[in-house]
């Protein structure tokens, strides 16, 4: 499936003002409507090894699959869409590679990474995520957080120990409960939503979402939404102005046109008699 001209994609990554190197990685492919962002962790250079493996693996596997198969199928047993299965399998593959690498290379021990990935197909967006990297949607001037973090804090909120307001003041901000590379297997959360023209999607690492309040992100997107490059730079600048205590990565996707799937001729013919 080709999506030429349907999307504008922009990505930036910045070390921030405190860390000495950048462990985040992102990838975009506007032609197939694929975006991936990963926030690595681990000693020495292991964090960027983990996030790099993840982005390369997902970009590669998903692109191959998109080139050769029909994404319109749905799995009969699980009810999952093809995009959901592709993203899930690619993330699980990346998990295995990181886990194996960590075991066999001394300076990669204990490395891991979060990931959030989105695949646009047939006027829908399929999102797969693990950890606390997020996807937001901006529609009609309103920003909405689509993914829920796999973090200790989010679990405590969900279990009723904190209100969302209290959570902002809580100390346990930086513990993720799921990450790639930690175990042999990883549970991937899938979310699917309908997409409209003019939507703006934001993928980001916690270097943005921990440093800049949602209201400020919303105001910045409404002001600079016409210019994704400048918007991305402004968001990085805001994180840095607020302290820049972590690496900041941002991927923005603007939907320029709707992108319904082309039905195969045979399906269209059958549809006429249905």
């Amino acid at each position, binding site marked *: 499936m080709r999506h030429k001209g349907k999307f504008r994609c922009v990505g930036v990554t910045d070390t921030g003002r405190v860390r000495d190197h950048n462990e985040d990685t992102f990838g975009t492919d506007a032609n197939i409507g694929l975006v991936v962002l990963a*926030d690595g*962790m681990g000693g020495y250079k292991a964090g960027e090894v983990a996030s790099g493996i993840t982005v390369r693996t997902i970009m590669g596997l998903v692109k191959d699959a998109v080139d050769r198969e029909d994404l319109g199928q749905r799995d009969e047993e699980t009810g999952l869409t093809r995009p959901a299965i592709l993203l899930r399998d690619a993330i699980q593959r990346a998990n295995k590679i990181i886990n194996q690498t960590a075991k066999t290379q001394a300076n990669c021990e204990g490395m*891991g990474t*979060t990931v959030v990935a989105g695949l646009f197909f047939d006027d829908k967006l399929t999102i797969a995520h693990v950890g*606390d990297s*997020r996807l937001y949607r901006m529609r009609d001037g309103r920003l*909405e*957080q689509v993914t829920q*973090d*796999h973090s*200790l*804090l*989010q*679990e*405590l*909120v*969900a*279990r*009723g*120990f*904190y209100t*969302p*307001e*209290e*959570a*902002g*003041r*809580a*100390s*346990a*901000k*930086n*513990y*993720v*409960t*799921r990450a790639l590379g*930690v175990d042999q297997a990883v549970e991937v959360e899938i979310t699917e939503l309908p997409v409209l023209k003019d939507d703006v999607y934001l993928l980001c690492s*916690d270097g943005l*979402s*921990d440093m*800049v*309040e*949602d209201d*400020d992100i919303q*105001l*910045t997107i409404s*002001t*600079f939404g*016409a*210019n994704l*490059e*400048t918007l991305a*730079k*402004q968001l990085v*600048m*805001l994180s840095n*102005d*607020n*302290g820049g205590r*972590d690496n900041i990565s941002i991927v923005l996707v603007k939907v320029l046109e709707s992108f319904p799937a082309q039905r195969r001729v045979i399906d269209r013919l059958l549809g006429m008699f249905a």
Partner: protein
Amino acid sequence: MARLVLSLDGQVLAEYNMSKERYTVGRLPDNDIRIDNPAVSGHHALVINILNDSFLEDLNSTNGTYVNGKIIKKHALQDDDVITVGHHTLRFVDGEGDEPADEFEKTMVISSRDAARMAVPPPPPPPPQAAGAGAGMGPQGAFANGALPKAKLQVLSGQFAGRELELVKTLTTLGRPGVQVAAITRRADGFYIVHVESGTEGDFPQVNGAPIGPQARKLHDNDVVQLAGVKMGFFVN
């Protein structure tokens, strides 16, 4: 390390260091913190310790569990909270001062099994909005007001010459969509003008006669901004 101080009528009876994950409070002998008093239920309450935080949960006790005088079902414990069960009180001391607190340490992974071990039913679907995303950033947040400089733009040319615009917002959008749009951002160290869009590719706003390009440009007192054919003066108040 956090601890609980058990008292009755102002007399300290015992101290419990929170060195393991779960402490049950109740009348029966199998409790970690046993309070042998008829006003206390067999298994009255539970304290869960996760990393540096402690949580209190009432175990459907007959007389209820109170924190600082308010009845609770679940509660995130804070330093100096006073828990009341029956006639006894347990004062919570968080011991934070014992270790240096660097809240913004690197992200770490903990097993979700640790979190799952808390004796609570599966979570209800979380609310759709952000879970405290960046909340509590406090006054140092990007758009906090305070001692930021004040400035204004004054139109110097065209039919609106003389008109003034106070730059009080953190982001002010200027210009005409389809022709030329720019924004002025107010930051801690001053005001910056940033190109947003224009009808012609590469048609940037000008400051003192020079195009600003795609980068943000800092504005100085008496700078002349030209945008969508209109000249404006920038003045720091």
